[in-house]
């Protein structure tokens, strides 16, 4: 036997685990409506806040949300970031704008892309609307909305973001 030993500094041990993922009851309701082109939120029975996508509870009150509320596909930019690096497993080319958007009629932001805009002109309070895929491509997926784009409505003051009715911003 040789006195020399190879120094082992690593081994490859790939982990493959298969899961049958389920979305949850409340998210399933949201996705079922989304396939029909409808954005549906859920209202808290206690504090009346509207969550979208609802995950089954009002995190503030710790109670189940039950009542469905149909929302607009218009939204307000709560905040945003311009991402200059690729997302693992996502084909989007950087730079792209990821925004926290509050849909009219809801009280909480969701994350989506912002496009058809000058990145340097995106701002908090800006009004935007969803750009949908053709109906034939709708699935149980938030990707039914390709992205949101700016619309010609006056900006919402920061303190009013998250407090608009379903009818939107009257200016």
């Amino acid at each position, binding site marked *: 036997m040789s006195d020399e030993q190879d120094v082992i500094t690593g081994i490859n041990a790939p982990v493959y685990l298969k899961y049958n993922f389920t979305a949850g009851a409340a998210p399933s309701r949201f996705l079922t409506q989304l396939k029909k082109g409808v954005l549906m939120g859920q209202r*808290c029975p206690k504090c009346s806040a509207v969550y979208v996508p609802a995950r089954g509870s009002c995190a503030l009150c710790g109670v189940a949300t039950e009542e469905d509320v149909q929302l607009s596909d218009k939204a307000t930019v709560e905040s945003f970031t311009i991402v200059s690096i690729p*997302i693992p*497993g996502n084909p989007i080319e950087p730079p792209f704008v990821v925004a926290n958007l509050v849909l009219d009629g809801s009280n909480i932001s969701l994350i989506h892309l912002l496009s058809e805009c000058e990145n340097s002109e995106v701002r908090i309070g800006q009004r935007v609307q969803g750009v949908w895929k053709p109906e034939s491509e709708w699935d149980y997926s938030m990707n039914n909305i390709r992205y949101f784009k700016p619309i010609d409505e006056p900006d919402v003051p920061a303190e009013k973001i998250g407090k608009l009715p379903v009818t939107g911003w009257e200016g």
Partner: protein
Amino acid sequence: MANLAAVVGIGQTKYMTKRTDVSIAGLLREAAFKALQDAELTWDDIDAVIIGKAPDMFEGVIMPEVYLTDALGCNGKPMLRVHTAGSVGGSTALVAASHVQSGTFKRVLTVAFEKQSESNAMWALSNAQPFSTHLNAGAGGYFAPIIREYMRRSKAPYDVGIKVAVKDRLHGARNPLAHLQKPDITMKEVEESFMLWDPIRFLESCPSSDGACAMVIANEELADKASKPPAWIRGVAMRSEPTMYAGREQVNPQAGRDCAADVYKQAGITDPRKDLDCAEVYVPFSWYEPMWLENLGFAPEGEGWKLTMEGATSLDEGGDIPWNCSGGVLSSNPIGASGMIRFAEAARQVRGDAGAHQVEGAKLALGHAYGGGAQFFAMWVVGAEKS
């Protein structure tokens, strides 16, 4: 009333991108052994071991305490594993302290770690879930919009984050264990670094590190006999709130404010800037320094950035309340350990054992960690004196 407890030993690995020379167990053992050496103790002197790390998916080892017990001399003893997201290093120290403060144990070992090089943390954090939009660009993508909202509200100049990035790297250059060693870093260099998640630049972000941090915590009787000065635990606090709820204050989270108020009350602190000598605060993205200066009550709301710009938090500028003298998370970030490093570095300061980044005469220091969507908080105050 809790029993008195103190940190009597601290051990840290060198932080770096890849520690290919040690296994996961070897990494923890290195930190643990150094902590025992520092305390002049052996494995037999330890009654229980408490470990912490961020999600198991970071290394791909499920419930790693099961495998790590042998390396940490824990066989035949109690072993506990804490996981509270990014705050875990801090929470783990608090849970370890509770083993002693409850009077249940005399002396415990606590270790927190991350060996990010053994897996892909960005993947684990951005792990695609079917049905949801897959736009999670890691932690930076999550926190960038919150930072933008802080900038809007506070009307802070654009270069506050740049200043923090430079300051913490200069601090880190004093700390031989720090991952990033950038003694010549300049404002210009940070400003010209790549904009990753606008407004967060590359050099305004924490690195990805391998590393482990360990502490030995002992009861009053044993700490009184310790060979080196103990760091007495003067206050401990944790707070959690949900990630998202209608009307949640994300820039200045209530959980952070409440946690700070709790820990200050225990430690008899009324004016943190005046009463504390220094602080080790979890700042993974540079703008979180001014944000946490306000959240933790060092400055009025909207004015945290002024302390940063005045140099109040800088050791090099002779600031009155140096923050992250060790270089902070911006200089080293083994995620699961980062919180414990903050707690341990606060303890090093009041033990007078912080080497070239020592704040002269430090008697009272804050250790802070946060995690999740800035919703989990853990803090402790340590002092050179018992009360």
